């Protein structure tokens, strides 16, 4: 009966949990999954500033350096947390998913993005819903990180937009409209087939709208000291030695108990 109870206790404790989130998360990073509840969402693009390099580690504690990112490298930062008084973040260099890992967030400069643009230009932005009918646009639609950035972060292919099986009945919807200093109108796409960004409503197929904005960027770099290729790992040798001593003593005790029992 007692053994049946033990078996039932074990079976009852078998839990399976699956959660899904649209935000990127490290695929297989043990440190992240042990500390994700302490992590804050960042979900922004940063860059390695001029004159600096940034090391990517497998973990903020006990990890090893897997790559050094050179100046100008764009990095997607997913989450951050504090470890030993420092802010560490996890993410990957844009276009290089294989190099996901942890890095010191204070060594990166946050790119001016959609969020900053909306905050800085709130007076010129109106909540206005609308849509473009893809078949009437007659071309590829370009999306931009923000109006005037000059950085196109995606395109909506004409063939996909015009096909019968297109998402959202062939309509590209927007929810915000920005009026630029020249009177041009830009619509913000919250989501369309994986794309998020701004499109130039006056001519969505223009690959290079004339508007150019050079907003002031808030400095986010706080750590400019040379970063040595220094592993964050503790002295594994000493830890292994200590565990070895524990194993030896315990093994002797076990042998002693077994001999005594005989």
């Amino acid at each position: 009966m007692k053994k049946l109870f033990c078996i039932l206790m074990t079976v009852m404790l078998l839990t399976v949990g699956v959660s899904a989130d649209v935000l990127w998360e490290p695929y297989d990073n043990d440190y992240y999954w042990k500390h994700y509840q302490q992590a804050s969402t960042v979900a922004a693009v940063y860059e390695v500033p001029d004159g600096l390099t940034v090391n990517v580690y497998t973990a903020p504690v006990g990890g090893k350096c897997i790559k050094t990112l050179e100046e100008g490298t764009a990095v997607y930062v997913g989450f951050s947390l504090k470890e030993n008084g420092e802010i560490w973040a996890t993410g990957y260099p844009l276009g290089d998913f294989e190099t996901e890992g942890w890095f010191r967030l204070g060594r990166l400069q946050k790119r001016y993005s959609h969020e900053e643009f909306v905050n800085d230009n709130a007076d010129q932005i109106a909540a206005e819903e609308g849509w473009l009918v893809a078949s009437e646009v007659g071309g590829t639609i370009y999306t931009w990180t923000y109006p005037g950035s000059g950085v196109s972060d995606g395109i909506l292919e004409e063939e996909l937009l015009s096909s019968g099986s297109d998402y959202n009945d062939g309509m590209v919807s927007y929810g915000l409209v920005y009026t630029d200093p020249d009177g041009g109108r830009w619509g913000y796409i919250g989501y369309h087939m994986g794309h998020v960004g701004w499109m130039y409503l006056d001519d969505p197929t223009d690959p290079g709208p004339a508007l150019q904005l050079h907003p002031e960027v808030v400095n986010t770099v706080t750590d400019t000291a040379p970063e040595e290729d220094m592993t964050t790992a503790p002295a594994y040798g000493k830890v292994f030695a200590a565990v070895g001593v524990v194993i030896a003593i315990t093994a002797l005790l076990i042998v002693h108990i077994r001999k005594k029992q005989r």
Partner: protein
Amino acid sequence: MSLLLPMAWTLALTLVLELVFALVWGLRREKLLMVLLMNILTNPAANILYSFMTVYLGWSKCLPAVVLETAVIAVEGLCCRGFMDRPWSFVILVNLFSYTAGLLLQTL
């Protein structure tokens, strides 16, 4: 030092869980002591090796978890063999219990 504290905590939690299980299983005195010692023998070693492989080397955690848990069960089974009734059933179930209980506690 930053690794020793989590290891000590993991060992303490494992000991509590497995000793409770052992008591319900019906083990007493020397047999309970054996459960205590076999966990001290295997738990720190398994944890430090797991940490080294997954955190430091960045390996995927599935294979190290399976290999190390199997090794733990094998070593603990050998410790209990000839020392108690149904040693392998006990070792497999007690490790399954403490592993799943640990997973559950992590989600809380």
